[in-house]
């Protein structure tokens, strides 16, 4: 523990998932924490690494995700409120179902005034959030620095743990 009395509150996060739904929490929390004057580091590892790619192509899968509401993002209010239960046997076998679910989720987010992941990621960089790409996962998945946005750092477990050792909040997402 450092003896810095004025050290800001620290948030350390690991982002390990690269789907449209799970891509949100790390960026929402990181940007908000930075806006609350916290010092933030997000370590992107395994599937979370794709969240740092220049061009995001995140998808959401209803399959194996039975809690996901399937609602129409447009049309009369009554219709929008209906939840259409889609059995896994359909969501997993109908071609294009995942694309449709992804498109529905994006439309709904936009309609409800939710920022895009790209926007939140930009806010994180603007607010000085430290975004660290896991070098080991990059090697395993065959990613290069060219695949990722500018302004990020590269490191491994020790890099994250050194920061997290003095963190007030640590989250694995």
């Amino acid at each position: 523990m450092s003896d810095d009395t004025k050290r800001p509150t620290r948030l350390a996060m690991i982002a390990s998932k690269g789907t449209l739904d799970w891509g949100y929490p790390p960026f929402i929390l990181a940007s908000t924490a930075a806006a609350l004057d916290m010092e933030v580091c997000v370590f992107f590892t395994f599937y979370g690494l794709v969240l740092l790619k220049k061009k995001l192509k995140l998808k959401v899968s209803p399959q194996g995700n039975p809690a996901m509401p399937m609602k129409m993002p447009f049309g009369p209010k009554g219709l929008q409120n209906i939840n259409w239960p889609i059995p896994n046997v359909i969501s997993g076998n109908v071609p294009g179902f995942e694309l449709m679910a992804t498109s529905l989720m994006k439309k709904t987010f936009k309609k409800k005034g939710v920022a895009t992941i790209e926007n939140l990621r930009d806010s994180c960089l603007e607010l000085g959030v430290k975004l660290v790409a896991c070098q080991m996962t990059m090697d395993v998945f065959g990613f290069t620095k060219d695949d990722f946005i500018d302004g990020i750092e590269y490191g491994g477990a020790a890099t994250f743990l050194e920061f997290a050792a003095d963190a007030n909040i640590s989250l694995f997402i």
Partner: protein
Amino acid sequence: MDKPQELDCRGMNCPLPVLKTKKALTTMKTGELLRVTATDPGSVADMAAFSRRTGYALVESGQADGAFFYVFRVK
């Protein structure tokens, strides 16, 4: 008292009102006021938390014209 600077966050959802508010406050001078309007019901708790964490005083808040409003003073 000078007229507060206005920030319209109506129609935006979490965490955008907080992010926009912070961004606006950092461009302003000490003592100046910022009046934020938002429709996100979550902003009621979030703006208060933002104020407590950052020290930007929430000098007034409430509801008007179908929206929530928050007046911050720049520290």
